[in-house]
């Protein structure tokens, strides 16, 4: 979803923020790579290639940050959908956390119900029906028909 139609800015721009964040990641990788055997130029060790990649990342990130052609300001990014996005991510995180404990069907039902009832404020009957259909339907399709192993959880559901 490109948003570069905004007027260019010369202060704290999107490219500058992104470039500097990537430089920080590159520095972290360099730090961690240095803990691995680097070997020599002719006989590289396990840390050599990650180190080279991190240096390349840092160079391209610096180019992005400091040879910025005047991209829109960092503050011009609209975050209107962010609360909803956070809710969706929370549902995904819940699924990861609960799937092997509660079982696939209960977890998916709870996640889908949360998205439709709490996040989207849909009427209870269609929302719960859709959640039930999604959890039971996908389980039947994948676990029963296609024999993909899905977790049953502590209660075997």
């Amino acid at each position: 979803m490109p948003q570069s139609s905004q007027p260019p800015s010369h202060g704290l721009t999107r490219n500058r923020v992104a470039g500097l964040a990537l430089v920080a990641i590159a520095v972290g990788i360099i730090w961690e790579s240095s803990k691995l055997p680097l070997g020599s130029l002719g006989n590289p060790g396990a840390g050599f290639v990650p180190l080279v990649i991190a240096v390349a990342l840092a160079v391209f990130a610096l180019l992005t940050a400091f040879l910025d052609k005047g991209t829109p300001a960092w503050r011009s990014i609209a975050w209107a959908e962010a609360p909803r996005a956070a809710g969706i991510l929370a549902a995904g995180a819940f699924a990861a956390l609960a799937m092997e404990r509660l079982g696939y069907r209960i977890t998916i039902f709870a996640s889908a119900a949360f998205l439709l009832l709490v996040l989207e404020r849909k009427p209870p009957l269609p929302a719960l029906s859709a959640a039930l259909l999604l959890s039971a339907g996908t389980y039947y399709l994948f676990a029963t028909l296609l024999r993909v192993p899905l977790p049953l959880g502590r209660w075997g559901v």
Partner: protein
Amino acid sequence: MVETLHNLALGFSVALQPSVLAYAVLGCMVGTIVGMLPGLGPLAGISLLLPATFGLTPTTAIVLLAGIYYGAMYGGSTTSILMRIPGEAASVMTCIDGYAMTQKGRAGAALAIAAFSSFAAGSVSLVALTLVAPPLAGIALKFGPPEYFGLLTMGLIVLAYMSGGSMPKTLSMAALGLFLGTIGIDQMSGFLRFQYGIIELGDGIGVVPVAVGLLGLSEVLLVAGSGAPAGIKAPRLGELLPSRAEARQAIGPTARGTVLGFLIGLIPGSAHIIASFVSYGLERRLSNKPEEFGRGAVAGVAGPEAANNAAACGAFVPMLALGVPSGPITAVMIAALLVHGVAPGPLMISEQPALFWGFIASMYVGNVVLLALNLPMVGLLVQMLRIPYPYLYTGIIVFCVLGVYAVNQSVVEVWIMVASGLAGYLLRKLDFEVAPVVLGLVLAPMLEMSLRQSLAMSGGSYWILYDHAIARSLLIGALVLLALGLRPFLMRRADWRTHLEQDGL
């Protein structure tokens, strides 16, 4: 030639078996739906349905996934033309003139032109694929680690050069992907890298959770809260025929789009997306009436549609002949074949002829199936888009979680998907392209291994990359492209990317 025809006959004997044919039809239909739904492109669709192929034979699995791929290419154009919603990225260009034709009451003609251009391009490209892949595989048998290193480096640079965005940004994303690809056990020394006690990371980060998170989940996060799509009026069957003048106008762009798309498809990168952009630009430049572009020009539909379908076909050449993914989609398909114990590459043609030629033949069949099934079913298919978006995206999230978990039955993969979704969301807010991350992730092990094997072969001398003619040519080509791509950026001059941006493309 006779041998090729003989092999193709073997392929058709496999592809026309009822079970294989059924999966080809199923793949085309699922792909069409995947392509129509905003937020689910071919990559996300293939990734999500990958676990469903585990119970199939290798042939039916690859036939199903290929059907989804080119079905999605086709399906994306339907919503682009009728609703100005590109179901997948390659259909963005079709939106411009396709939707303008719909507003002029020529929706049926636009759909038919898109379908026939796609069909023609797909068919011609398949003939090219049939003829090019086997000899290329023969050449690839002579490739050693230096040549593979040159090829993969060239692929990454070409991707960055051809992408519409800033070259340093694309390269930084590719570097990020390459780093992710180094996580896990080092295949040459056995050292565990960046594992931090998480046992599942020992095998590395999987392509599927990263691809689904970066491309599928991030799309849902970005469009969450947006309203329902605008109302649509699907054309009747009788309205699907273009006029004679429109058909004539479509021939040239279709032919040019086919050649251009197939050639671009051979180059690693998001070929089908690039091909449709380049084709649109070419048609507008060649047109006697460039002012018609954006107002319903037939060439603006025929060219990009032919190009993206031809590129989808061309992308199979490096995958089948060299075992090298030409993009994230073919990377996931390679992963699918590996799950079934089949390694794509030069030896696949000689060791698995029924699989290779059956796959090629199934694409011929799929092309016909798409044309025969989808045009009459346009009205039915677009009804799916009436599902309220909250219900639709909830379903997509469920499929994301299910698809990612089922690959290795690991919740760590679901966590990786959630983290990738968040990263993709933030990166796309900052105008980064995320597909190079996936490509970098796929290419990293091959790139590292080919470099280190080259050095082992030469006793630690980097001159081996210069001494081998193919590797040298590829690396020099990569350096030239890198310099050309970075020059306007460093000199702060406008280049073709800036012009594309200024033109609103």
